[in-house]
């Protein structure tokens, strides 16, 4: 097989993080195993050549995944262009997408010590913004395009006992959607916590959920945790909090669990609102070495198809329409009254989708379901027609539709600056500036960070 050049972009050298040209090349590579796909090839004059798998599939499928978003809705810049992407984040005028979700790291403390933590959380020295500082972040965000969806992250955010105050403060400042990124331990152990968070204004729980068996938790999280996850889901359901399961996918650890996780989610509709897969990223404290055959979007979709016996088909999914399409996939699946699963497929055309639309969509899809079925007596009032099928559809869409999605984060090896410039997720830094997620967490092979702990 010949090598075909299908595109050119910019990336960084994984050693010195200097910006270098990168080429998207269709080729076949034989290392430990034969891999065909699209590779990101780049050469640093000082540190040598790098070739990283970014798409397991041919050029046609790679290009077909593109959903060009013709809308550049980024208007709120807080930094100027000086050194060039990715060194001016905050955001700078080179950024092409407004923010949808902002990650607010409320603590670096954690009750786990995961060997694969991207946030390198759990350090001995406590670092937590005060409520006053968080108030400043909220105000700065509102002045720069807010309100955004807020993800409370960490560390483990439930380590803070004033988490309800943080949410209440955000609500007062004008934010309406709060999502908690958590390992679920405290939610499982303390029933009142979910209730209190719901009362404070939390909408949804983004629950770390790697497996239906204990072994992957022991490998990735250092201890068995499945039992506590079940309890956390139960407590969230009682409190009326939507739950999104978030498996971190690692080859040879839990990729074979994809089907059983999806089945568990379907069985627990409407309490579970979605499953959001995150193939592991090789940054932060991740002690694993990136394999030659990295998990890419087509591979995850093919595993979903295989492990659900084609109940969910790879063609039922599409790429992101706000963020760069090669960053993510998503599909919606409705459980019908007879238990049959139906893919809900919209048009796959290019779009002019704004971050604002995505904010609302995510908030709706991941918050707890609200029963919207009309009472029978109301339906009987209809004298000149009946639209029951539309009512039933809207009811099932709200209550029994599972949002299945995934995001492939970038590290120093597969970083594509075109993708980075379309990032819709911002981490807020100490100055109240939004740093695109993959820039904030970018580290060189020696652990040097571009933005975190600067």
């Amino acid at each position: 097989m010949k090598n075909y050049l299908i595109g050119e972009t910019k990336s960084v050298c994984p050693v010195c993080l200097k910006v270098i040209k990168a080429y998207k090349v269709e080729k076949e590579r034989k290392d430990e195993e034969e891999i065909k796909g699209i590779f990101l090839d780049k050469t640093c004059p000082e540190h040598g050549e790098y070739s990283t798998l970014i798409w397991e599939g041919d050029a046609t499928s790679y290009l077909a995944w593109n959903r060009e978003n013709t809308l550049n809705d980024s208007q709120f810049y807080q930094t100027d262009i000086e050194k060039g992407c990715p060194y001016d984040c905050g955001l700078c005028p080179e950024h092409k997408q407004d923010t949808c979700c902002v990650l607010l790291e409320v603590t670096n403390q954690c009750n786990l010590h995961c060997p694969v933590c991207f946030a390198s959380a759990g350090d001995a020295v406590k670092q937590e913004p005060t409520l006053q500082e968080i108030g400043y972040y909220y105000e700065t965000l509102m002045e720069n395009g807010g309100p955004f969806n807020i993800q409370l992250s960490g560390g483990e955010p439930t380590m803070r006992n004033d988490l309800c105050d943080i949410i209440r403060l955000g609500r007062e400042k004008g934010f309406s959607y709060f999502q908690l990124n958590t390992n679920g331990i405290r939610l499982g152990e303390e029933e009142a916590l979910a209730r209190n968070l719901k009362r404070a204004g939390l909408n949804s729980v983004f629950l770390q959920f790697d497996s239906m068996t204990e072994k992957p938790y022991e490998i990735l999280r250092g201890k068995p945790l499945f039992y506590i996850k079940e309890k956390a889901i139960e407590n969230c359901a009682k409190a009326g909090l939507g739950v999104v399961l978030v498996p971190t996918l690692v080859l040879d650890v839990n990729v074979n669990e994809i089907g059983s996780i999806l089945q568990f989610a379907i069985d627990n509709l409407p309490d579970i609102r979605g499953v959001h897969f995150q193939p592991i990223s090789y940054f932060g404290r991740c002690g694993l070495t990136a394999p030659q055959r990295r998990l890419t979007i087509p591979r995850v979709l093919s595993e979903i198809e295989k492990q659900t016996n084609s109940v969910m088909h790879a063609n039922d999914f599409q790429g992101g329409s706000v963020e760069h399409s090669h960053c993510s996939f998503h599909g919606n699946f409705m459980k019908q009254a007879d238990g049959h699963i139906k893919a809900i497929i919209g048009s796959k055309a290019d779009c002019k989708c704004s971050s604002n639309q995505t904010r609302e969509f995510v908030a709706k899809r991941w918050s707890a379901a609200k029963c919207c079925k009309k009472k029978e007596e109301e339906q009987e009032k209809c004298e000149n027609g009946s639209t029951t099928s539309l009512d039933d559809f809207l009811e099932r869409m709200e209550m029994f539709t599972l949002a299945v999605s995934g995001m492939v984060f970038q590290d120093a090896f597969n970083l594509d600056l075109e993708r980075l410039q379309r990032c819709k997720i911002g981490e807020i830094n100490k100055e109240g500036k939004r740093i695109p997620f993959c820039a904030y967490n970018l580290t060189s092979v020696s652990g040097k960070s571009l933005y975190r702990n600067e």
Partner: protein
Amino acid sequence: MTENYDQSIGSIGEFICEKCGIPLIKSQVRFKYMNNAFPVELLMCPKCKFIYVPEELAMGKVLKVEKSLEDK
């Protein structure tokens, strides 16, 4: 504009097809969008098959269904 199509159409009374001059009657029709079909009962002219879709329905439930399907 009332949100509730069922109530609004029920209160207006008989509709006449402007072209054929005869009353519309309740008929089974199908809304189709992408790969989804929704059988509904709407007023239709028995002669020219004109279907009356009230604004309340188009801008209410139908729009909600379209938005749901399109992830909007």
